[in-house]
């Protein structure tokens, strides 16, 4: 061992953290995600509480020093899917209409919003209230909605989302990119309903 050690000296083992001190910093994020998944405050709190209890009971399986947030969210998503199984069946992804790439970019260009000095993306989003944005995400098929929710609400990488959902990273990438295109289509409808294009033609 002397002089030949190639591995870094072992760090002094940190004292194991207890469940609640690991959970407390992630519980608000978990609630936000649960709210966007379920759409109802009462359902969101039930989901977080259920996941917390399950996680507490399974805490002996958590490896100290690993990503607690990802571990907990995996349980949260399992609880969410378990509750969903009792509800309505989803449309198949194959049957789903595809939205073209750069949907909003093209629509806003056609509507004449790309003049110099303007920020067309912000003009679209300024027309969209928070609850309408949430409804647009909620309108996505479940597979896309779940990936999009983890992406927007939690700063997870594709790899982390893949771990939380137990699917390949390529599946996350494809669902997220397709979901975002559909989302742009939904957002355009909300923004135009809110008078985006009409307002612009009045300016002209």
């Amino acid at each position, binding site marked *: 061992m002397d002089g030949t050690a190639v591995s870094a000296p072992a760090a002094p083992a940190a004292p194991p953290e207890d469940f609640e001190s690991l959970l407390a910093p992630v519980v608000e994020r978990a*609630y*936000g995600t649960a709210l966007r998944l379920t759409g109802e405050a009462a359902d969101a709190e039930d989901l977080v509480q259920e996941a917390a209890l399950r996680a507490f009971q399974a805490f002996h399986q958590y490896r100290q020093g690993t990503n607690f947030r990802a571990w907990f969210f995996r349980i949260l998503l399992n609880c969410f899917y378990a509750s969903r199984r009792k509800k309505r069946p989803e449309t198949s992804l194959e049957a789903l209409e595809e939205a073209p790439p750069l949907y909003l970019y093209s629509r806003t260009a056609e509507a004449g919003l790309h003049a110099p000095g303007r920020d067309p993306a912000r003009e679209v989003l300024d027309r969209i209230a928070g609850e309408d944005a949430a409804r647009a995400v909620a309108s996505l098929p479940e597979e896309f909605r779940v990936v999009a929710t983890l992406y927007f*609400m939690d700063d997870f990488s594709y790899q982390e989302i893949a771990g939380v959902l137990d699917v390949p990273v390529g599946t996350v*990438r494809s669902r997220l990119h397709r979901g975002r295109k559909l989302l742009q289509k939904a957002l355009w409808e909300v923004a135009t309903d809110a008078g985006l294009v009409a307002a612009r033609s009045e300016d002209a």
Partner: protein
Amino acid sequence: MSASDQYDCHEAFRRLDDYVDRELPPEQMERVQAHLEICAICAAEVRFEATVLDELRGKLRRIGVPGGLMERISARIAQARAAEGPTG
């Protein structure tokens, strides 16, 4: 970076979603970046997509967390602990 290393619009566009999410390998991130520095159209598309995502993220995250959530969770955990007995 030599001219032959540079992405054209098509190659950069194929990577647009991964680029705005910083999910490309570092070498590809750099090559997309280099293309955006010389192509105003692709740069405008990337800026547009990134703004939409940022604005949407901000709107979706604006939520009120119910007061006392962690306390209610702790209470349920205390109940579960009590039910398990002193040895856990």
